[in-house]
């Protein structure tokens, strides 16, 4: 599904990604771990098409299509979803209004009709229940004044609504208490299928207890320095990163 | 004769009699200034910038323009107005004339001396030509008037890489030799690259007679210079002051002007900052505590012309009796001044019926990637806090003073000279009408 080949990327002329290779197939769950500043968020932003980052070499290919020329919203329409490490506040725009716009814009891009209001409401309720989100929460301004945990839960709620092909979860577990973690992981697992894939970025093993990865990669200084199965995460938790340098 | 006519007609006599050099550039500047003043006249309430301050009653006085001191002033007369607890250079002027006897000047690491000699000595010609009257605004008719009659004041010239070892105190005294006196002191402060200076300025009337001081100060802060300028305004109820201070800053400099207004009949402070480089910081702090029929008008302008600069403005006012406060804070962010961070806050408390405040916090923004905000509040003391304190046995008067003190405290906190800080604290306590029983 996703194929990243020798990806190099700069920001402000500073090279952050220094040749990443990664293959993710439909139905798989991959985890990326790595010390602070190693480039995990950068990788996810480059996949999502953030323009501040300049791809100097290599390519990101989604379902045999090179994404080089795709704008962020086009990538979203193609099924890439990024759960932000730091979700952005948009004052005055409610969660409901935002997700409604996102869904309808995506449908429009695919040549579909807008979702009738009734169906939209039903869908919103269903997904909100899945993530145990209070109805009142849906009419608050997007991310404004949300607690860390609420922001992350809201990201997964949007993911549930948009049903992406490839979901990238950038430290979605940080800021969540253990109950919330279970709810979020449960949400992600419910959405998992043979046809989609998940890329989890995390520092902790505990999320991986709930969202069990098929592969674990260690990112260090802009490169994947080790890959392995889920037991690698346990090893990292025990030993830290130093032994990999 | 009206004051304006009197001033215009005595200009020639002033220049001839004063032993001033009529071939100099300064003479040209004076000439132009008196013409500008003649054309513009004194501002009236019709001028938007003078909407809330009326000069008319003040201008009715028959001012003596060139007073002479009749009773000599000794150290004991002025001691209480000096901050003695610190070593400092002092520049002391009595009725517009420099008193070398009371002053402590220097020419060692830097020049802390008088403008009259700087204006005439060839040694300073370059400095005068480069700086004098270059930022005082032509459309400010009172500043023009001052320029026309410029004769004496402080001249502070600090070369590169110099940390002036002690603060400089500038004091202007009036002995009231005539019933009504007009004084027009003029200061020029040039601070070189990487240099640092602290200046304290004060105007004081030693008599019961009427004085009107029309002062102008020009401050130049070069690259990375740090300038702290403190203005103490605690004059008698017969004294009025129009103070125009212009600050020009080069890149990475930090200039702070603090204005403490506790006294005087009518005070108008024009304070203007002009930026000539990036990464400049400008700080404007002020506190006004007024009673009786006092009137203080703080008129500030920060003109952001370059990117990545900051300005922080904080003015507080406490108004009792029939006193009146005016705050007019203008912040302009020009198109090129992206990434400007401009912050302005003005908080006021009205204590009595009859006291008033007119505020006009004004933002003019022409650049999009900026952080600008202003806030303005008018209110009273928190009744529940007052009650809480009273219930703990603190008498109402003290409780009030304590709360008011706390209200003004963040402005006082910005004073970097500890001795000055405690002096200001004492003045605030006095003005709030309580004994200094607390030290916050």
């Amino acid at each position: 599904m996703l194929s990243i080949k020798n990806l190099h990327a700069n920001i402000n002329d500073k090279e952050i990604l220094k040749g990443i290779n990664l293959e993710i197939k439909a139905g798989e769950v991959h985890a990326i771990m790595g010390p602070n500043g190693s480039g995990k968020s950068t990788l996810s932003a480059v996949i999502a098409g953030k323009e501040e980052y300049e791809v100097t070499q290599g390519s990101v290919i989604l379902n045999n299509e090179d994404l080089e020329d795709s704008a962020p919203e086009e990538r979203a329409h193609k099924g890439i979803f990024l759960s932000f490490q730091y979700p952005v506040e948009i004052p005055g725009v409610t969660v409901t209004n935002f997700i409604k716009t996102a869904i309808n814009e995506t449908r429009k891009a695919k040549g579909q009709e807008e979702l009738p209001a009734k169906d939209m409401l039903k869908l919103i309720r269903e997904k909100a229940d899945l993530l145990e989100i209070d109805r009142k929460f849906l009419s608050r301004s997007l991310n404004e004044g949300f607690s860390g945990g609420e922001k992350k839960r809201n990201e997964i709620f949007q993911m549930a609504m948009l049903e992406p092909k490839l979901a990238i979860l950038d430290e979605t577990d940080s800021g969540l208490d253990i109950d919330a973690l279970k709810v979020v992981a449960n949400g992600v697992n419910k959405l998992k299928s043979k046809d989609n894939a998940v890329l989890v970025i995390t520092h902790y093993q505990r999320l991986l207890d709930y969202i069990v990865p098929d592969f674990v990669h260690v990112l260090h200084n802009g490169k994947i320095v080790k890959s392995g199965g889920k037991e690698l995460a346990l090893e990292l938790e025990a030993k830290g990163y130093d032994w990999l340098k | 004769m009206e004051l304006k006519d009197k001033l215009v007609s005595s200009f020639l006599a002033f220049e001839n009699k004063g032993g001033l050099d009529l071939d100099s550039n300064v003479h040209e500047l004076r000439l132009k200034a008196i013409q500008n003043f003649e054309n513009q006249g004194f501002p009236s309430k019709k001028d938007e910038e003078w909407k809330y301050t009326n000069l008319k009653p003040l201008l009715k006085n028959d001012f003596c323009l060139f007073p002479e001191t009749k009773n000599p002033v000794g150290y004991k007369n002025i001691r209480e107005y000096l901050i003695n607890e610190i070593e400092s250079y002092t520049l002391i002027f009595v009725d517009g004339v420099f008193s070398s006897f009371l002053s402590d000047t220097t020419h060692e690491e830097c020049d802390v001396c008088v403008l009259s000699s700087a204006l005439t000595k060839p040694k300073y010609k370059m400095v005068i030509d480069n700086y004098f009257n270059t930022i005082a605004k032509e459309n400010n008719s009172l500043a023009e008037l001052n320029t026309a009659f410029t004769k004496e004041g402080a001249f502070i010239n600090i070369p590169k890489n110099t940390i002036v070892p002690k603060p400089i105190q500038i004091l202007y005294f009036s002995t009231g030799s005539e019933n009504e006196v007009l004084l027009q002191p003029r200061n020029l402060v040039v601070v070189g690259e990487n240099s640092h200076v602290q200046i304290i300025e004060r105007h004081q009337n030693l008599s019961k007679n009427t004085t009107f001081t029309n002062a102008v100060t020009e401050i130049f802060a070069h690259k990375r210079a740090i300038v702290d300028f403190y203005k103490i305004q605690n004059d008698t109820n017969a004294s009025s002051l129009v103070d125009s201070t212009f600050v020009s800053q080069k890149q990475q400099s930090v200039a702070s002007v603090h204005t403490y207004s506790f006294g005087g009949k009518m005070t108008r402070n024009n304070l203007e900052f002009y930026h000539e480089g990036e990464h400049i910081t400008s700080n404007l702090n002020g506190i006004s505590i007024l009673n009786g029929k006092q009137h203080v008008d703080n008129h500030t302008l920060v003109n952001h012309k370059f990117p990545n600069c900051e300005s922080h403005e904080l003015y507080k006012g406490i108004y009792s009796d029939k006193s009146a406060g005016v705050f007019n804070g203008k912040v302009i962010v020009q198109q090129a001044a992206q990434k400007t961070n401009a912050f302005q806050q003005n908080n006021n408390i009205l204590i009595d019926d009859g006291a008033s405040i007119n505020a006009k916090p004004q933002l003019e923004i022409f650049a999009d990637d900026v952080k600008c905000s202003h806030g303005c509040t008018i209110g009273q003391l928190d009744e529940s806090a007052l009650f809480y304190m009273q219930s703990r046995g603190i008498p109402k008067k003290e409780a009030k003073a304590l709360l008011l003190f706390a209200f003004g405290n963040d402005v006082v906190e910005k004073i970097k000279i500890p001795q000055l800080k405690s002096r200001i604290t004492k003045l605030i306590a006095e003005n709030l009408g309580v004994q200094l029983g607390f030290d916050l």
Partner: protein
Amino acid sequence: MSKFTEDDLKKELETKEYEYGFYTDIEADKFPIGLNEEVVIAISKKKNEPDWMTEWRLKAFKVWKEMKEPEWANVHYKKPSFQDISYYSAPVQKPKLDSLDQVDPELLKTFEKLGISIDEQKRLSNVAVDIVVDSVSVATTFKKTLNEKGIIFMPISEAIQEHPELVKKYLGSIVPQSDNFYAALNSAVFSDGSFCYIPKGVTCPMELSTYFRINEGGTGQFERTLVIADKGSYVSYLEGCTAPQRDENQLHAAVVELIALDDAEIKYSTVQNWFPGGKDGKGGVYNFVTKRGLCEKNAKISWTQVETGSAVTWKYPSCVLKGDNSVGEFYSIAVTNNYQQADTGTKMIHLGNNTKSTIISKGVSAGKSQNSYRGLVQVGPRTKNARNFSQCDSLLMGDQCGAHTFPYIEAKNKTAQIEHEATTSKIGEDQLFYCNQRGIDTEKAIALIVNGFSKDVLNKLPMEFAVEAQKLLEISLEGSVG
């Protein structure tokens, strides 16, 4: 790159035609240009006005002649030549209409294009509409329904004939003839507008609405609106404005007076979409409007405005809070683009005790436009416990535009509590990326963010018009992040 860049947006915005810029070919009965006493008298005659009204106009004209056009606002424009304007232009038609069927079909088509087909309105919504084209009121719907409640809603020209005692008592009582240059001009030459009276204790069962439209070239439009809410009554009133696209500037100088007697409430909403001028700054309406309301005891007046049109706007809907416990509100969104200039805000004059006012002003500037908030909060020396809260936020798009705030705060009583806040911001790159990532393109994202920015004000509009207003915001702004 297939990405719709900001430059593309700018381009599209520039070529965006003024959506309502068409011109209806209706025969117009138009006065020759110029203004003098005879013209004033002729206008009065044309309308069959009683002598007191003619006198009233002449008095206004006398005052106006002596006045100078104000220059204090933060706007720059070529002053209209008041002798080059025709002061009366009425669509030619049968003088009295019994039903809509008699309205000129061309005119009806115009309304349809405006999306305010009267029939539609009648069927779908609960709105009574009075429509003023050029200078004359052409139709008032729902008259019967309103009559049953004793509500008077009619062109002011008719009210002068049918309810002279009310008009005489209140006309000019809040905005006197001598108030300001444009108000004086309006008082002398106004040709029509709406009149509304809600009797004691009556809650008006529907929104009342007036649509104004300037059609004829070289004319000025000077409508006069007078709304009186008697004790304990309630009314919600909406005005909408459009004008066709023309190269020359058109002048609009209206006066609106609101009177809320004891315990009454008036909600006055405006969606102003006069032609803003071309992308080069050519043409557009000069909108110089005086709006003021008076609140008696426990009364409330709430002004809500969405200002997207006009080349130059000069407008300060104000409240005189005369009665104790009265409340004034001002909610405003002003969007400027291209070469538009807006200087708008409010005055809250606190005279009664325990009076309260709220000001929420949102300014969005794009293109080369200038957007100013100008406001006055005044608390007199004998006014106890006055409260005001003001919030002025500006959103800038691009570095060619300006956002300015000129608040005047005057407090002369120690019990006054006033809070004023202002902020300036721009749309963040990270906000746009977040929206993009969820599949929302940049143009739509901007619309969404601006809507969010304006929400506190949009929420105050009657439901029927909130959607329309939202659309207008989008149209007038599309793109323009710089």
